[in-house]
C-alpha cells in the first residue's frame, strides 16, 4: 500500500533549485522595479510626509513582493511537480515527512527579523510625523454634513469647501466635527485624520507642490457622504496673500465665503435643489403666494416689489448674496429669517444653480 510511485531524484525534487533561482531573479527584478519607480508617478506627492510615507510603502512592497512571489511560485511549482500522475493508483502516498526543525527555525526567524526591521522603519517615520516643523500656520477644519469649514487666524468668517494654504509653509491643522464623524484626507498629502465631534485631532504637513487637490471625507457621515469633497489649493505665497486679503475684505463687509461664480449655474440642477431645500418655505408663484416666505416666481418682473428683502436691487449677485449669508430682519412688520447657505447645507455651486433657476423663472 505504502509505495512511493514518484521517488524524487534529489532530496528536494526535480527542478527545485532552478525554480528557486528563477523565483529569486523574479523577486529581485520586480523589487528593483519597485525601488526605482517613484510612487509620485501614480499619485503626486504634494507635501512633506508624503515622501516618507511612500518610502515606507515601498519598503513594505519590496518585502511583501518577495514573500508573495516565493509563496505563489512554490505553490504553483509543487502543484505541478508533485501532482499524482493520472495512471497512479489513488492510494499513492507522498513523502512521509512530518517536519524539519531547521527549516521551521529559519522560516520563523527570517519573518521575525523582517518584522523587527519593518517596525523600526515604521517607528522612525512615525516619529517624523509627530515633530512640529514650526508653528507657521495653525488653522482649523471642521466637518459638517456635508461640507468642510475652514477657519484661519485673523479671518473673522470661515471659508467653506475651499482650503487655501501657502506652499512651503508648515501647517498645523486641527480637525474636529460639528455633528457626526467625518474624515479629512488629501491623497496627495498621504495623511488623514478623523473629524470627531468633541475631540480635536491634529495633522501636520508642509505643502511642497503648488496645485489643486481634493479633500475627501473618509468616515461615513450620512446620505451624501460620497459627495463630501472640498478643494485644497496649495498656492504660491503671493497668491495665498491675495486670496487671504480678498477673504478678509469680504469678511469685513459683512459677507463671508468664497466668491460665487454665477455664470456656471445650471437651472435644472437648481430646480431639483429648490424642490429639496427651498420649497418648504417658498413657492414659485407670485409674491403673495406665501408659505413661510414670499413666492419667488416673479422676482425680476414684480412691479410691487422692486427690491429684495434687504433693500438691494434685484440682481443675480444680490440673490446669491442672500442665499449665501441668509437674512435676518424685518419684513412686512414680522421678523423674517432666511437661513444661510451653511445652515441650509448648500455649496457655492448650489447657490449658482439656484440663482440660475430663480432668474429663469421670471423669463
Amino acid at each position, binding site marked *: *500500500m*505504502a509505495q512511493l*510511485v*514518484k521517488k524524487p531524484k534529489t532530496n528536494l*525534487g526535480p527542478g527545485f533549485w532552478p525554480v528557486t533561482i528563477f523565483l529569486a531573479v523574479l523577486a529581485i527584478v520586480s523589487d528593483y522595479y519597485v525601488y526605482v519607480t517613484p510612487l509620485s508617478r*501614480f*499619485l503626486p506627492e504634494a507635501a512633506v510626509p508624503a515622501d516618507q510615507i511612500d518610502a515606507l*510603502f515601498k519598503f513594505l512592497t519590496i518585502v*511583501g513582493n518577495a*514573500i*508573495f512571489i516565493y*509563496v*505563489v511560485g*512554490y*505553490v504553483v511549482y*509543487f*502543484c505541478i511537480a*508533485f*501532482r*499524482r500522475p493520472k495512471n497512479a493508483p*489513488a*492510494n499513492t*502516498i*507522498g513523502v*512521509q*515527512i*512530518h517536519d*524539519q526543525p531547521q527549516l*521551521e527555525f529559519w522560516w*520563523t526567524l527570517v*519573518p521575525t527579523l523582517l*518584522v523587527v526591521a*519593518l*517596525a523600526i522603519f*515604521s*517607528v522612525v517615520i*512615525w516619529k517624523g*510625523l509627530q515633530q512640529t516643523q514650526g508653528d507657521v500656520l495653525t488653522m482649523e477644519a471642521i466637518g459638517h454634513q456635508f461640507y468642510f469649514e475652514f477657519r484661519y487666524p485673523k479671518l473673522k468668517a470661515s471659508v467653506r469647501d475651499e482650503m487655501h494654504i501657502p506652499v512651503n509653509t508648515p501647517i498645523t491643522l486641527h480637525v474636529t466635527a460639528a*455633528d*457626526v*464623524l467625518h*474624515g479629512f*484626507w488629501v491623497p496627495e498629502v*498621504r495623511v*488623514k*485624520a478623523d473629524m*470627531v465631534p*468633541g*475631540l480635536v485631532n491634529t495633522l501636520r504637513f508642509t505643502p511642497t507642490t503648488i496645485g489643486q487637490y*481634493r479633500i*475627501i*471625507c*473618509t*468616515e*461615513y457621515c*450620512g*446620505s451624501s*457622504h*460620497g*459627495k463630501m469633497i472640498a478643494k485644497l489649493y496649495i498656492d504660491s505665497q503671493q497668491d495665498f496673500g491675495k486670496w487671504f486679503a480678498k477673504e478678509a475684505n469680504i469678511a469685513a463687509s459683512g459677507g463671508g465665503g468664497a466668491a460665487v461664480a454665477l455664470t456656471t449655474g445650471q437651472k435644472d440642477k437648481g430646480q431639483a435643489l429648490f424642490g429639496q431645500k427651498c420649497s418648504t418655505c417658498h413657492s414659485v408663484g407670485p409674491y403673495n403666494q406665501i408659505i413661510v416666505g414670499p413666492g419667488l416666481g416673479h422676482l425680476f418682473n414684480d412691479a410691487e416689489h422692486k427690491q429684495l428683502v434687504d433693500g438691494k436691487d434685484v440682481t443675480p449677485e444680490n440673490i446669491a448674496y442672500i442665499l449665501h449669508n441668509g437674512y435676518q430682519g424685518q419684513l412686512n412688520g414680522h421678523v423674517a429669517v432666511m437661513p444661510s447657505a451653511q445652515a441650509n447645507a448648500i455649496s457655492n455651486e448650489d447657490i449658482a444653480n439656484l440663482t440660475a433657476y430663480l432668474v429663469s423663472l421670471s423669463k
Partner: protein
Amino acid sequence: MAVATRTSAPHAVLDHIHPEPESFVRKYVFSIDHKVIGIQYMVVGLIFFVIAGLLAEVIRVQLLHPDGRFLGGEQYNQVYSMHGSAMVWLVIIPLVTGGFGNFIMPLMIGARDVAFPWLNMASFWMFPPAGLLLFGSFLIGAPDAGWTEYPPISLLGPPGTSMWCAAIFLIGISSTLTGINFLVTILKMRAPGMTFTRMPLFVWAQVATAALSMVATTALAGALAALFIERQFGVPFYDPAKGGSPLLWQHMFWFYSHPAVYIMILPAFGIISEVLPTFARKPIFGYKMIAFSSVAIALLGFMVWAHHMFTSGMVPWLQLPFMILTMIVAIPTGVKIFGWVATLWGGSIHFSSAMLFAVGFILTFTLGGITGVYLAAVPVDLHAHGTYFIVAHFHYVLFGGSVFGIFAGLYYWWPKITGRMMNETLGKWHFWAAFISFNCTFLPMHWLGLLGMPRRVAVYDPQFTFWNQFASVSSFVLAASTLLLFYNMANSLARGKKAGPNPWGGRTLEWMISSPPPYYNFKKVPAVLGLPYDFGNPLPYLGLDNPQAEAATPSQTGQPAAAH
C-alpha cells in the same frame, strides 16, 4: 453507584447509546443532535449567504457609474451596511463555527455529541430569529452607517438600527454560548488517548475560536446594549454633545471585531489544514507549529484592536504598541502559510474541488495577509485607512480566506454530511470561475483605494470608472459561479453517487464511520494512538466500529465516475 460503575468499567458508560428521537420535530426541528444542528446552521447560513451576496451585487451595480444612477445615497448606504453585517454575523461566523464546528468537530474527537446538546439547540435557535430581525430592519429603515455603526451617526440612523442592535446582540449570545459549549466539549470529551497534540488541526482551530468567541463577544454585547439604550431611551453613552464618547464605541466594537476576524479565519485555517494532507497524501508539515500558531494568533488577537483606530484620535504613543503587536501577528500567520506550502512539497497531489479551493485559499489569503501588514504600519495606514485598499484587504482575507475555506470544507465534507458525492467536474469549474473572478473583482480595489477612492461612497470620481466597472462585471461572474455550487449540491442530493464512509481516504475519525454518520456517531468510542496524518502507517485507532473500513484508501478519489 454510578460513580463506582464509571471508575470500574469506563466503557460500560462510554458505550451507552441514547435512542434516536422519533418525532419529526425532535428529529429535524428542535434537534439536540450536533449533526442536525450543524446542518441547520449550514442551510440557514447559506440562505443568508445568498441574500448577502445579492446585496453585494446591488453595491456593484450602483458602482458601475461614477454618478451612481441606481440607488440614492440613503438606500445605497443601507445596502452595504446590511451586506457587511450579514456576511460577518449571519454567514461566515455561523458557517465556520455553528456549521462545520458542530458537524465535524465532535466526530473528529470521537464524541457522541457536544457537551451541552440542549444549549447547542438553544444557540442555533437564536440564529434564524437574529437573521429575521436583521433583514426585517429593511421594513422600517435598515441601518445605514456601515457594519461598524459608528456613533454619533448611528444614534441618528433609521429606526432599523435598533433592530440591528438587537439582532447582533442575539447572534452574539448564540456565539458566546457556542464558544463555551465547544471549549468544554474539546477539553472534556476527546476520545481516550487523544491528547492535545494528537488532535486534528481543525479541532485546534475550534479551540482557539471558541475561546475568542467566549471572551470577545461579551464586549460587543455591552457596546450594543449601550447603543440600543442610548437610541431608545436617550441615556448618553456615545453622544459627545451630552457627555458621551464616540471613541468608547470604537474601542468596545473593535475589542470584539478584531478577534471576530480570527473567529472567521481560524476555522478556515483548520479546514485547509485537513484538506491539504488528505489530498497531498502526506502528513501536515509542522503540526505543532500550525497548532500553536492558532493559539498565538488568538492571544495576539486580543491585543491589536486599536489598529482599526489609528486615525480616530488616540494618544500618539499608544499607536506604537498596537502597530508592533499587529506586525507580530504576521509571524505565526507566516509560519502557517509556510507549513501549508511545505505540505504540498513531495506530495502525491490530487486536485479535487476541495483541494483546488484549499490551494486557492493559500494564494489569496497570502495577499490578504501581506496587505494587512501595510495597514499595521501607522504611517501607511494614515493614507490607506477608510479607502478601497481596506475593502480589498479584508475581502482577500474574508472571501479569499474564509469563504474559500467554507467552499473547500463544503466539497470536502459534503459526502460525509449527506452520504452522496458532488460532481467534481462542476466543482472544478466553480473553483476556476470563482478564483479568477474573485481576483478580478478585488485586486483593482487595492489601487483604487491608494489613488484616492474612499469606501462607503455611492458616487465616485470619474477617473476611477474603468476599474470599478471591471470589478463590477467580475463580481457578476463571481455571483454566477456560486450558482454552480448550489446546482451541484441540489444535483448531488437528488442523483449523487453514494459516497461510502471514506471517499477521500481521510484519516481523521469522522471518516471511520458511515456517511452520513449514525445518530450515535460511534458505537464504541475508539482509542487514539497517534496523530491522524501518517499516511504511510496503519490507522492510529483501536476499537473502531468497522475496522475493515476502507480507512486510508481513497475509494473514489478523483474518478470522474464519482460525478454521476
